[in-house]
């Protein structure tokens, strides 16, 4: 008796495969790509529990349990890179939201659309530049011998030149400024799109009631774009353990002297793997990052779903 339904099911599965064979074939390149680029590396995380030897291969290498993690957390690096990653990202998120929403509101207040569009295209420009180029731009300011800051600001003021690329204490400010320069334009365009979508009747009614510009912003604009603000912020919070590799690698020019304030998990993993050749440490730090990030995405989403189901990401 039991075999009958399952056989029928198998039959219908087979029928579905035959019927949709062309569509299935269309998905094969994509399925294979994600298998290679994403799913194989996911299974590869077992490297973190192994003493990898190239001759034995990944599966043949010896298991060492949590040894790699022990080594990682015995150094103070684990703490420094986690602290740096989380703190920088937290500051970036707050600054991005506050500044970008402000800029978007101001852009929306400009009556002449041509002028507004001109501003938009300029402020979006940094978003299109690669981290390498941004590294150059920062270098033109901070070069010790010829940089704009040392030579044209500090020297005329009679202040001694600062060797920016070997003084860690300035870098939290530099990186925050560079990140703001790079991303605020992008986020404000996204928020502006949300603001433009607000029904103009709300504002007309508010004007009739004698609401000031500021009151309109506070009681109409901000509440109505809150869902977009929430979604974008949550996406960033979910990725708080993932640093912008380009920013932290290119802008400080991978300078060893700056590591205490510029090293983040991503740059650490890169150096451990490709510059120090310490695969155990690199894979342990990488898995640590992936697991924390994964848990965080789910945690954040679960909380949001409880508070307001509509804002949940999935």
């Amino acid at each position, binding site marked *: 008796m039991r075999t009958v339904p399952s056989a029928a099911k198998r039959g219908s599965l087979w029928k579905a495969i035959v019927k949709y064979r062309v*569509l299935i074939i269309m998905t094969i390149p994509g399925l294979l*790509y994600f298998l290679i680029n994403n799913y194989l*590396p996911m299974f590869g995380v077992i490297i*973190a529990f192994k003493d990898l030897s190239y001759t034995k291969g990944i599966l043949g290498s010896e298991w060492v349990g949590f040894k790699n993690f022990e080594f990682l957390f015995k150094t103070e690096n684990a703490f420094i890179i986690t602290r740096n990653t989380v703190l920088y990202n937290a500051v970036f998120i707050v600054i991005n939201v506050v500044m970008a929403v402000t800029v978007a509101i101001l852009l929306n207040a400009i009556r002449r659309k041509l002028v507004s569009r001109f501003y938009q295209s300029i402020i979006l*420009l940094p978003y299109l530049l690669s981290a390498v180029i941004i590294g150059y731009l920062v270098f033109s*300011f901070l070069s010790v*011998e010829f940089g704009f800051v040392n030579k044209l600001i500090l020297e005329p003021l009679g202040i001694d030149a600062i060797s920016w690329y070997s003084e860690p204490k300035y870098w939290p400010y530099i990186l925050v400024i560079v990140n703001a320069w790079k991303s605020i334009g992008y986020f404000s365009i996204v928020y502006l799109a949300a603001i433009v979508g607000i029904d103009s009747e709300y504002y007309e009614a508010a004007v009739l009631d004698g609401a000031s510009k500021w009151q309109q912003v506070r009681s109409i604009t901000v509440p109505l774009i809150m869902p977009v603000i929430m979604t974008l912020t949550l996406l960033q919070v979910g990725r708080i353990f993932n640093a912008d590799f380009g920013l932290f690698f290119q802008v400080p020019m991978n300078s060893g002297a700056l590591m205490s304030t510029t090293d983040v998990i991503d740059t650490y993993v890169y150096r451990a793997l490709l510059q120090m050749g310490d695969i155990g440490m690199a894979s342990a730090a990488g898995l640590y990052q992936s697991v924390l990030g994964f848990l965080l995405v789910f945690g954040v989403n679960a909380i949001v779903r409880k508070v307001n189901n509509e804002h949940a990401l999935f």
Partner: protein
Amino acid sequence: MIHLLFLVYIAATVFPLLLVFMVSITEEKSLLIHGYSILPHQIDFSAYRFLFQDSHTILRAYGVTILVTAAGTISSLLMTALFAYPLSRRDFPFRTGMTFYVFFTMLFNGGLVPWYLVYTKYLSIDNTLLALIIPNLLMSGFNILIMRTFFMNTIPPSIIESASIDGAGELRIFWQIILRLSLPVLSTIGLFSTLAYWNDWYNSLIFISDAQNFSIQYLLNKTLLDIQVLLSQAGNSGQSQLLANAPTETIRMAMAIIGIGPIILAYPFFQKYIVQGLTVGAVKG
């Protein structure tokens, strides 16, 4: 008042770019005295002249970037559309499972080490142009979901049904109907893909050690860290005399301008699509 704020903001955005440009056209000796100044004391184009005389390295890197960008963008668009279309078909029985397969790649990743080992030890594509095209850049779950949503929202199922009744096969429907009706989303995603390939230096950093396959961005990266990269490559063509007194400081910045140039020049034409694309991305899929 608002305009004053925006003028300040715009000045802050443009100033670093202008500074790099001005340095690149400054006479080297005056630069050594006055530093990187926004108003050159003496204008001189010898950095560019030098770069064009020894253009071999740069032209080669440009060639690599253009080839990779073109091949990458086309294959990326094609593969993304091929995958997104079945996922958009409400009658396709495997769509839920496959959508989750794509979505999960956005939630969890195995990290750099296993990813690196897959491409270097198992596929052995390091130091080939494939390493600049395939890893991470070829397909993204995000783009697939955006394209799928576009197909679902803009192409009425009745069109597909009636074409199918008229005897059109799935491939023909995809090729002649779906793609034709989807030019907006194809151009937006194609544009973002072009930018991603053009700006990419990460894959070069991870996978490429052979100077033959340096992309323009990676060559720039190498030049910033060590100007000798440019000089050592030209050394074998018997120009070392010229190189000994090359204006290295201004050359560096001229390199940056050469890297930014195409984007700035093309920006006015594609700016509209970028804004469109960002807006699409903001809407929940």
